[in-house]
């Protein structure tokens, strides 16, 4: 872990972060899959802010909504599993960032916009979604899956050059 790569300590910390975010994604996905009547419609219809019209329009299209529901619940689950395992970590991080960005834009805590029901916590522009997004950027940038995760094996098996080790 030299030559500009992160040292062992920070890599362990980032791996822990990766597993935690993965856990959260996995449960968000599984909870939706196992709830027979879950749909993103409720969330989309509460959309606020500059992109609200797009999200609401989406909620009103039954076919698109069904697709969005499937993509969301299976996508979240898949991203969660991959992050925990450290398999295809970069792809999974990018996918996770995409999901969070959509959630964030659906209800952004911008100045002058507020949720009509009380939510836990107080947010101005930065909310927990954005923090989790930041965590995934760290995971994305660090190559944590190669440090500790199945990516290590993938690399070895595919016979590519490994990172420093």
């Amino acid at each position, binding site marked *: 872990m030299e030559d500009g790569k992160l040292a062992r300590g920070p890599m362990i910390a980032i791996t822990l972060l990766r597993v935690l975010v993965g856990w959260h994604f996995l449960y968000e996905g599984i909870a939706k899959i196992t*709830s*027979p*009547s*879950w*749909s993103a*419609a*409720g969330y989309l*219809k*509460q959309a*606020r802010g500059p992109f*609200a019209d797009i999200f609401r329009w989406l909620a009103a299209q039954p076919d698109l909504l069904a697709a969005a529901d499937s993509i969301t619940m299976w996508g979240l689950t898949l991203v969660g599993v991959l992050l925990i395992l450290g398999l295809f970590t970069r792809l999974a991080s990018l996918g996770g960032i995409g999901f969070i960005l959509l959630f964030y834009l659906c209800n952004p805590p911008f100045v*002058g*916009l*507020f*949720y*009509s*029901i009380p939510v836990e916590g107080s947010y101005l522009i930065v909310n927990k979604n954005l923090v989790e997004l930041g965590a995934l950027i760290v995971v994305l940038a660090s190559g944590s899956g190669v440090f500790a995760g199945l990516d290590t094996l993938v690399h070895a098996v595919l016979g590519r050059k490994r990172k420093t080790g």
Partner: protein
Amino acid sequence: MGLESPAWTAGVKRFSHEAMATVFEVQALHPDATYAAQAAHAAFDLVDRLERELTRFLPNSDVGRINALAAGQSTRVSPSTMDCLLVARQMYDVTGGAFDVSIGTGLPSLELAADESRVRASTGGVRIDLGGIGKGHAVDLMGELLEDWGIEAAVVHGGFSSVLALGAPAAQEGWPLTLSDPGPPIRVLVRLARRDTALGASGVRKGGHIVDPRTGKPAAGRRAAWAVLPRQAAHERSQAGCGGPRRAAAAAADALATAFMLMRLRDIGALCAASPGLEAWVLPEPARSGGPPEALHFGTPGSS
């Protein structure tokens, strides 16, 4: 809204009662003061019972249980709560979501099974607050109770914002009522004489605001709005399969007044044109220059 007081009003007996965070009042014309008082108090008992069902502050009220539903769960509610929810759903539909008892948390996810009076949540997290329709709902049922008691001419209101004129005083066209600018300064905008008609009012005091459930943003530009709906018109709506209880006129007017604070004027006009008997008044905020604004009127009075 106010009630004018000409000479014949001396015979009007007034009874009031605190409930639903406001004051309910029955003004009845009846020769027997004791009997009128008993009728009024029977109506107030009814309001107290309704409040226990509709309050969101008690975990074991109908609304408390609905608000605790997780996805896929259901709960049984009283028939009167079901009626109130049916009207709320209907008003959500006709106002394009401008009246939304779930304040944007997803009213359509509540499935209302009227035949078994059961509410099912298809998604979790729906929170309803019947504050914008509950008073009207109570006033409707109080009106029916008073009629059952043989009180034929009365005005019932919940906090002045939800009013039901039952019958009319002898030799009068209707109960005299006023619609006023909430001010400051307070001034009478419209004088009406109505019988068997429900009126709902919504407004903001200086500095207050109403949140648009469709956008989550505070609505601006209007100071007050009123909805007027004859009971007969509400009755015909329910006969026509629009759902809801027999004569949910005050509940509908209560809800519509809130929606009229938010809806586009041409949508209000279109709704009034499509709903015989429904009238709306909208009072815009005063312009920066110029005199006090006048209320805009939509719809035509129903024949009652």
